[in-house]
């Protein structure tokens, strides 16, 4: 589904947490419609990488552009950029004091100034799409983890984003709920959504990704189509990582 037009471009990005070099000269371009899965051991910087793209983490040096524009540093311009990039977190982060439907309509109403009625209609359609329209009036704590994460995806989609970032979306889920969330993500990928997905779900990486990025120690070590990466990892570190997760 890739178009060859770059949407997200990271150029020589460095990030330090104090003395810790969490992103080490990372360069990466994600095309419109492309699905990039980022894998790697804990502490390799993959979540940080994901979070720099909508500037939840500011970077120390280098540059990031989104849709041709450098990321704004702060203020309204940054808020506008974030509204165009959907984000799904490991811990769902649904607004705990709002109903499921309110979670989905909040952004369109408060950020895009959309009319409440039309936001509600679209919100319900999105909830229907992720399979939880019948829970619209409940509060997040009343839903299972898998349901909450699907609401979080609907909330991000409600902003009609140009790209979606997924930061370990299934890591906090019970095993039997992983599938329902991955199904939604897979259908999004098929429809041509640009996605950056940090995950440990190798199955998803194999069947839904256009490219797999392997990170270790803050560096982008490999960047290859999934079939090639899983069959023939070029680096020792990727081989080591895959041998540890694929033998079980």
């Amino acid at each position: 589904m890739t178009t060859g037009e770059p949407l997200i471009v990271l150029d020589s990005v460095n990030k330090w947490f104090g003395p810790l070099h969490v992103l080490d000269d990372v360069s990466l371009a994600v095309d419109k419609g492309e699905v990039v899965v980022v894998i790697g051991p804990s502490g390799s910087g993959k979540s940080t990488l994901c979070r720099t793209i909508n500037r939840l983490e500011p970077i120390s040096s280098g540059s990031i552009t989104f849709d041709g524009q450098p990321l704004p540093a702060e203020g309204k311009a940054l808020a506008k950029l974030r509204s165009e990039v959907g984000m799904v977190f490991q811990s769902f982060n649904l607004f705990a004091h709002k109903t499921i439907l309110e979670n989905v309509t909040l952004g369109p109403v408060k950020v895009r100034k959309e009319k409440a009625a039309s936001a509600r209609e679209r919100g319900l359609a999105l909830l229907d799409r992720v399979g939880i329209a019948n829970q619209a009036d409940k509060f997040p704590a009343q839903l299972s983890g898998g349901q909450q994460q699907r609401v979080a995806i609907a909330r991000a989609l409600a902003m009609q984003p140009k790209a979606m970032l997924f930061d370990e979306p299934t890591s906090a889920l019970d095993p039997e709920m992983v599938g329902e969330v991955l199904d939604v993500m897979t259908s999004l990928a098929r429809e041509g959504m640009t996605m950056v997905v940090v995950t440990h779900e190798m199955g998803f990486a194999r069947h839904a990704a256009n490219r797999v990025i392997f990170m270790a120690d803050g560096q982008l070590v490999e960047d290859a189509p999934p079939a090639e990466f899983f069959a023939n990892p070029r680096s020792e570190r990727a081989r080591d990582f895959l041998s540890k997760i694929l033998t079980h």
Partner: protein
Amino acid sequence: MHVFADQTNLDAYVSGFLWILKLTGASTFFALVLGVLLAAFRVSPVPVLRGLGTAWVNIFRNTPLTLIIFFCYFGLFSTLGLSLSDDLNLNNYWLGVVGLSVYTAAFVCEAVRSGINTVPAGQAEAARAVGLTFFQTLRIVILPQAGRAVVAPLGSVLIALCKNATIVGTIGLIEASSVMKDLINSNGDAVIPIFLVFAGTFAALLIPTGYFFGWLANRLAVKR
């Protein structure tokens, strides 16, 4: 209870507690507005505002209320000529409201700030990720959740405020404790009954207030 059978004494008793209620009402309003604003300052990304909030809390939380009320009268009014009303009683009342509000705001600020700290960081991240600005995030996502967490502690702050209102008696407003002192002075044979009536009235006002805030806190609690 011959003391309260006397209509003049009874009127003084009622008027004393009315002043307490008026002081509490107005000061609650200003202390809440100011306290929430100061809490917003203390969590804002702007260092000057954070400094201002911190300074306010450190100054007013650590100064005895009696001194603050004295300053309002002798400093603001007598020396600097700040008159808030031509009516002597009303002037003392408003000076008292100023003192009680700036003092209580420091406690409200700290209660709200501790409430903000109970809201998981992910809530603010999600709000920012959707595209809400800093103030929208605070107003729509953080403060409503923080507010629910601080209902019970705010209840304690407001109960303290109501009792602290008696200090305004020291600058000449004839509120409840001043009325009590006058009644005791003129009725030496009924000191303990008079004391019990005044203390009992405070308890009758404040015990239900405490239960109300406890009930409200449970009702509004955010489930996680």
